């Protein structure tokens, strides 16, 4: 018995020890490894989803590819670690992944007490409800008494609690560890309602037996700013993550795409010159090659391209840009200037 307690303590201590060493400087580690280790979801169409042959695709996946392109000039130098909602922060804290790009909501507690830093918002989301059409419900306010399926360890559990409390309604929460089991249980009729981020609802609906028999209710009950997360205390790395996203936004704003980026190199527009590294030393300032943004755009594309490719109107998810449009189009995506 003594031994068991001891091994418990030693095991925990080892967790603490290894966590201490992994984060000397993340950029050096990544360069030495020769690849970026990126934490993604276990399968959320449009955001991070593996295909039949194990190739990952999605908005969050493309972000990691863009970071790899910025560092190595090669978007393929990235390894993906699928993580459950529960495992994700520990995996990042312990240094198992270099960046967590897993549709993770930015909240104050997570930003301040976990030893983590949220960098940017690459998708503005909000929590919604999905229900069977034949239930004839058309507002979330009619859901009193409903059974609600969701994931454990997410902000959705707390939001739904707040929403039902604020509207004085009853509900039964059934929380599963893995998204696939939530879908299976909802499909099997265990719950009336499936709740998660609206983008997730559109994505998971594709996995149901009859996607057309389900409808997403109009109410959006929370703010869910999703974005990549890094460990606290490594500002150089945080800068690389932030500016990779900003570069993709600036590229879209300046009309630079993966197709015209080569010809854009000859542009006389000073903003484009600075973006593509033909003027100034902006890459060097954050410890990566000067043509970092060129590589990102060439290999992955600008923000609009990755959005359209993964979740946009022409994909099965068919999500419109909405609040995720550029600020110039009335949306919230705003890239600070590169200068």
């Amino acid at each position, binding site marked *: 018995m003594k031994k068991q307690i001891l091994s418990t303590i030693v095991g925990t201590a080892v967790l603490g020890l290894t966590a201490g060493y992994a984060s000397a400087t993340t950029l050096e580690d990544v360069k030495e490894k020769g690849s970026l280790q990126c934490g993604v979801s276990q399968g959320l169409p449009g955001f991070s989803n593996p295909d039949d042959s194990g190739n990952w695709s999605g908005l969050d996946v493309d972000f990691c590819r863009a970071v790899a392109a910025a560092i190595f000039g090669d978007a393929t130098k990235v390894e993906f670690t699928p993580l459950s909602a529960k495992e994700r922060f520990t995996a990042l804290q312990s240094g198992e992944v270099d960046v967590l790009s897993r549709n993770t909501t930015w909240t104050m507690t997570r930003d301040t007490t976990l030893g983590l830093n949220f960098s940017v918002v690459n998708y503005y989301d909000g929590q919604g409800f999905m229900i069977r059409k034949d239930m004839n419900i058309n507002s979330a306010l009619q859901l009193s*008494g409903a059974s609600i399926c969701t994931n454990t360890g997410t902000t959705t559990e707390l939001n739904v609690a707040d929403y039902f409390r604020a509207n004085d309604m009853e509900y039964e929460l059934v929380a599963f560890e893995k998204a696939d089991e939530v879908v299976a249980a909802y499909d099997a009729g265990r719950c009336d309602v499936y709740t998660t981020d609206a983008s997730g609802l559109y994505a998971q609906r594709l996995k149901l037996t009859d996607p057309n028999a389900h409808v997403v209710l109009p109410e959006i009950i929370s703010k869910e700013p999703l974005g990549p997360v890094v460990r606290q205390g490594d500002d150089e790395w945080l800068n690389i993550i932030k500016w990779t996203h900003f570069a993709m936004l600036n590229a879209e704003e300046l009309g630079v795409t993966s197709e015209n980026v080569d010809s854009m190199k000859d542009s006389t527009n000073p903003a484009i010159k600075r973006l593509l590294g033909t003027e100034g030393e902006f890459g060097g300032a954050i410890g990566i090659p000067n043509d970092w943004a060129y590589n990102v755009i060439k290999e992955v594309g600008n923000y609009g391209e990755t959005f359209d490719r993964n979740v946009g109107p022409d994909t099965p998810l068919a999500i419109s840009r909405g609040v995720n449009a550029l600020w110039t189009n009335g949306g919230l995506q705003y890239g600070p200037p590169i200068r």
Partner: protein
Amino acid sequence: MALQGVSHDVGQPKVAIFNDPKIRGWVYQTVLLVAIVYFAFVGIQNMFANLAAQNIASGFGFLGRTAGFAISQTFIEYSQAESTYGWVYLVGLINTLAVAITGIFLATILGFIIGVARLSPNFVLRGVATVYVETFRNIPLLLHIFIWYFGVLRLLPHPRESADLGFLGLLNNRGWFAPLPITDDLFFLTSIAFVIGLIATFVISNWSRKRQMATGQQFPVFQTGLALIIGFPLLVFLVTGLPLTFDMPVAGGFRPSGGFTIIPEFIALLLALTSYTAAFIAEIVRAGILAINKGQTEAAHALGLRNGPTLRLVIIPQAMRVIIPPLTSQYLNLTKNSSLAVAIAYPDLVSVFGGTALNQTGQAVEILLMTMLTYLGISLLTSAFMNWYNARMALVER
């Protein structure tokens, strides 16, 4: 031997202190203990220093903070507006214990029946028991849980078409909505009658055992006990004018209201744990019975005992000595396996505390440590109880 005898007569030979095996032993033990304590201390200190260096919050202050999420099954009062993480821990612990204790109880009964059936002279009975054991033992438990959960869930009707079980309430894929007994003021008399019945039965069984030892006369303890424990309270219950009503569930809305609900996750987990562990217990029971010499059966038959009493009075009491130690480890397995609940949303300790609470607070080290120590504690208590029971069942050598 001879040499030792001689040295005793002469007295202890003089040895240098560092050559004395006794002192050496002590020194080694002390050094080892100091080293272990030191490493544990340094490890823990290091862990907290590293957590602090990484700006990760530590300590147990989170236990007093409001949790704010819902739990689908709570045996104690739980309010998402007020209850704390410490309370969430209790809710989870009670849910774990509820499924583990019910599971142990049912698995033991089912296991004994199947174990005895495996040795039955009846070909069909033996065959069925063998097929059961071989099938259930050889499929991973997680699959059992999924099959029970998703299989049963799809078979059950939607709440709008609930199966009406009459007095037993309603059944649908939101669970079993059972009638909730509500006691009136006079019901305590029935409870008292029940306790009196229990005590009286205990006294009578002791007395009858002594009398049987002394005179060989038997007393119908079972029938008397039944009358005292069930009949007497029932009589009081009738005389005091049926002081008990039932709150029946009523269909309507998203799910029936009223009564009390047994959620499908509990039922699925219980069925999976019971059927799986019962297969192992059956094998342990069979092994225990086979360990008893056939001569015992023959001797009992020669004394005129029929099959039933032979099994009950001669074989099982002896077999228990073989059965209890491995049975204990099955009980421990069942309790620990109940943590697979997390796969099907049963709100056990691992799911609500080691899962949701961990994620909302981010304090993985503290929460996992607490969860592990809790399981360790439950297991040690179970072992201690079973060891005590084993000692009681041991052959008394006269």
